[in-house]
């Protein structure tokens, strides 16, 4: 099919004339498309921003993280009731000596049954989640030290009563804007010296979704060996590890589980959790929101598309005689088809651009009224414009095809 270059300008001029002849109908169709495209743009941008936020928060766990702990339900499976957590320091040592090829690093995590423990500095009391951890804990969790230092090998081996605390914990204990290093507080009747303060982590969305209510910025970390001596046991409650890469997380958890099964003679069952699993869950969740948004968008695009089909059908009928004249002076069927398709596409693309603007405004409005900083997604905007053009082509096709197929004699006789 060959299109004469002159036709594109001609068709544009024609489209402008004929569309301005039917102003109300044209405006309604444009609006239909605009609402649909605005929905595509707004939902797409919000999802995009939400994805960025959630993944930023997932980073605070370390994307390659694996947690492995005893499945306490194993007591019920006809097994003898077992004491202990099913993980101990010897297991950790084996991992440290490179038992598991897919594991980059690991840290024991020891915590009390009560989960939070009251700490105090004499006057201020504070219920804190306390954890006993190893050297690599900060690294695995992407934690940053604001001031001070990490635990040393010496701290851990010699059970030094030192602590790393979250910024929020520091402020609770010692007040804002003071210096926290080398201050001390009491925990289980012993005195701990602050050797470092951890930067705050953002987990607002995760907390709001109720996925994890752990008070991350209020944490108090001490060497796991110290916590074990307080609790009077060599138990490690959770082993936290980092896989060598994202796609090795499952292999790594398998290796860790096998190791624990072997060293404890299969007496315990274990549960493993990976960030990878969480990420997939979040992806599903976001996909469902997208689908809901897509549904709203497709309904309004459908309405807009039907509007375009309607104005184009009317336009074809009103201009039957003109079509006859064009054919009489030499227009091929495809010239007529192209003319009406272009007209439909102009309407829908104008609707698309208006919708794009509405969508951007909507994103900024949501951004202002909500506590989240949202940004319009430009890739979504591109998709929106392409979609609006497609809607025009699809909904304009049937009327355009009918126009193209008109017999010139019949069209010329039309009153």
């Amino acid at each position, binding site marked *: 099919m060959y299109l004469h270059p*002159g036709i594109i300008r001609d068709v544009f001029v024609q489209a402008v*004339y004929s569309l301005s002849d039917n102003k109300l109908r044209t405006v309604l169709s444009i609006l239909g498309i605009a609402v649909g495209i605005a929905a595509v743009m707004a939902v797409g941008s919000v999802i995009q921003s939400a994805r960025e936020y959630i993944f930023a928060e997932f980073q605070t766990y370390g994307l390659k993280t694996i947690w492995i702990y005893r499945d306490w339900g194993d007591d019920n499976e006809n097994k003898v009731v077992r004491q202990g957590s099913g993980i101990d320091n010897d297991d950790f040592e084996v991992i440290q000596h490179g038992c598991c090829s897919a594991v980059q690093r690991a840290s024991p995590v020891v915590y009390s049954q009560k989960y939070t423990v009251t700490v105090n500095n004499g006057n201020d009391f504070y219920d804190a989640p306390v954890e006993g951890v190893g050297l690599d804990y900060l690294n695995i969790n992407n934690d940053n030290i604001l001031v001070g230092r990490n635990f040393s090998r010496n701290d851990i081996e010699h059970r030094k009563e030192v602590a790393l605390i979250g910024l929020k914990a520091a402020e609770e204990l010692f007040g804002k804007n003071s210096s926290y290093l080398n201050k001390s507080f009491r925990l289980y009747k012993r005195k701990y010296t602050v050797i470092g303060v951890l930067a705050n982590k953002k987990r607002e969305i995760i907390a709001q979704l109720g996925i994890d209510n752990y008070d991350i910025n209020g944490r108090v970390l001490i060497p796991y060996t110290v916590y074990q001596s307080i609790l009077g046991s060599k138990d490690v409650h959770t082993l936290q590890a980092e896989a060598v890469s994202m796609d090795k997380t499952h292999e790594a958890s398998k290796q860790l589980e096998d190791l624990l099964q072997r060293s404890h003679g299969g007496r315990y069952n274990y549960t493993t959790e990976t960030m990878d699993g969480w990420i997939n869950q979040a992806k599903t969740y976001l996909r469902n929101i997208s689908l809901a948004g897509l549904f709203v968008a497709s309904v309004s695009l459908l309405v807009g598309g039907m509007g375009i089909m309607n104005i184009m059908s009317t336009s074809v009928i009103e201009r039957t005689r003109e079509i*006859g004249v064009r054919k009489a*002076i030499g227009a091929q069927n495809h010239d007529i088809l192209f003319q009406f398709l272009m007209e439909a596409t102009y309407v829908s693309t104008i609707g698309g651009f208006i919708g794009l603007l509405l969508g951007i405004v909507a994103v900024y409005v949501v951004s202002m009224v909500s506590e989240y900083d949202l940004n319009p997604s430009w890739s979504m905007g591109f998709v929106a414009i392409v979609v609006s053009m497609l809607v025009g082509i699809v909904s304009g096709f049937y009327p355009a095809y009918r126009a193209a197929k008109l017999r010139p004699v019949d069209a010329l006789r039309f009153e």
Partner: protein
Amino acid sequence: MIELQDVSKTYHLGEVRVPALKHVSLKVERGDFVAIMGPSGSGKSTLMNIIGCLDAADEGRYLLAGFPVSLATHSELAELRNRHIGFIFQSFNLIPRINALRNVEMPMIYAGVNPETRRKRALTALAIVGLRGREHHTAAQLSGGQQQRVAIARAIVNNPDVIIADEPTGALDSQTSQEIMQLFAQLNAGGKTIVMVTHEVDIARHARRVIQVKDGQIFNIRYQ
């Protein structure tokens, strides 16, 4: 130039068959000027549509400048109309809203002529029909006679062999009609073959031959 051999055309209105042309044979030489006359419903427009390649005959052969039109595809018919035929209608049939110049350019747009040549030729055609200075008027801003002049400019701009005019003066007063006929005579003198339907003897007088049609058949050809 035009050669119809035993051409028939029947319309079907539901169950009813309306024979509009019955075994018509006609030869029109290059440069001829033919007027077709006859009562209403006698088949004049049907004959014109077939000659103009707007409609196909049911039976018979039609050769236009040696080309077998009866065997042509839709696309070839469009091309024949574009290059070899110029149409002039009773109701002018200018494309509304666009100006005279763009109306005259239209056949060249479909012929793929480049914009500069298009414009130049359109202006020349408009000058020939005496509409210099009216290039930017739309149909609504022109009188009937002027609209028909634009239509004539549009019909001749692709330099066709044949001009087909179905009652070209049917909507015009007699003064304007005579002016339009002067233009036809001028075009014919320039070598154009013209086939024209008319009800008016005054108009038919400008033709070289008058063909009388009745009940779908030619019953008289008169030279004048």
